[in-house]
């Protein structure tokens, strides 16, 4: 059942990205271009998405389990540190260069757009680099320890 609902959630989420214009890199860049002709549409995308999910999070706080009975995994408290800020800045630069973030990247692959495929392949490579660096860090710590 988890698989079915996960697929449906992804499908609805993806349709939202297409309808909202988030899957159109030119529109995203229009939002990020404060100094040029600014397209505020993405503010409304965020507002709509946050309004609905805030309700869901409020409901989730009152529950221990999901509607299907599995465990609810909310993020555990973690610090505001250099990793968070540095990583987010690096992500923002990439986002501003192409106008594509991870969700729309996958949707563009589904739409069969070659640029989406190139971006997504590079994104996975970047995530792979992160995994390797993390593994190296663990090994380094073990070697010292």
């Amino acid at each position, binding site marked *: 059942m988890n698989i079915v*609902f*996960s*697929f*449906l*959630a*992804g499908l*609805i*989420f*993806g*349709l939202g990205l*297409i309808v909202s*214009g*988030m*899957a159109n*890199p*030119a529109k995203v860049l229009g939002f990020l271009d*404060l100094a040029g*002709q600014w397209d505020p*549409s993405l503010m409304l*995308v965020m*507002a*709509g*998405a*946050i*309004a*609905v*999910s805030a309700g*869901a999070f409020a409901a989730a706080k009152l529950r221990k389990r999901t509607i299907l009975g599995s465990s609810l995994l*909310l*993020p555990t408290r973690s610090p505001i540190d250099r990793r968070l800020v540095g*990583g*987010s*800045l690096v*992500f*923002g*630069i*990439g*986002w*501003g260069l*192409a*106008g*594509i*973030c*991870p*969700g729309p*990247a*996958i*949707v*563009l692959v*589904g*739409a069969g757009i070659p640029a989406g495929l190139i*971006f997504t392949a*590079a*994104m*996975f*490579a*970047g995530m*792979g680099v*992160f*995994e390797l660096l993390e593994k190296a860090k663990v090994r380094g710590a073990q070697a010292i320890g």
Partner: protein
Amino acid sequence: MSIDWVDFTPRAALVGGLLIGLGAAMLLLFVGRIAGISGIVGGMLRPKRHDLGWRIAFAAGLLAAPLLYQRVTALPDIRIGVGTGTLIVAGLLVGIGTRYGGGCTSGHGVCGLARFSPRSIVATLSFMLAGFMAVFIVRHLFA
């Protein structure tokens, strides 16, 4: 700053946003997971027992969305104005940055803000700022 009224699509933006929120709500309340796309797909590279199926299913839903959309009507305008080199650099930065930052536009920008997470507020301000700066440099300093 001047507002681009021609490209401003408030109704589509709001309806699309509500759908994004609905997808995130569904994943949370039925599957018990946060709809953070970078975490969902990035986690595939670190496979754990009983943890891969839902990730693949969610990504398959994202992939299927344009296919379903196209069965009903033509996809809206999708314009990519950058070359292959920029796409590769941007993709690498997005991949590394989102994993170090622990989230992207969906995980921090939507879900994190929706649950008032201070961490996500800081992350969202950081990537928005960097995005504004990157576009400013590319479009206005080097144009």
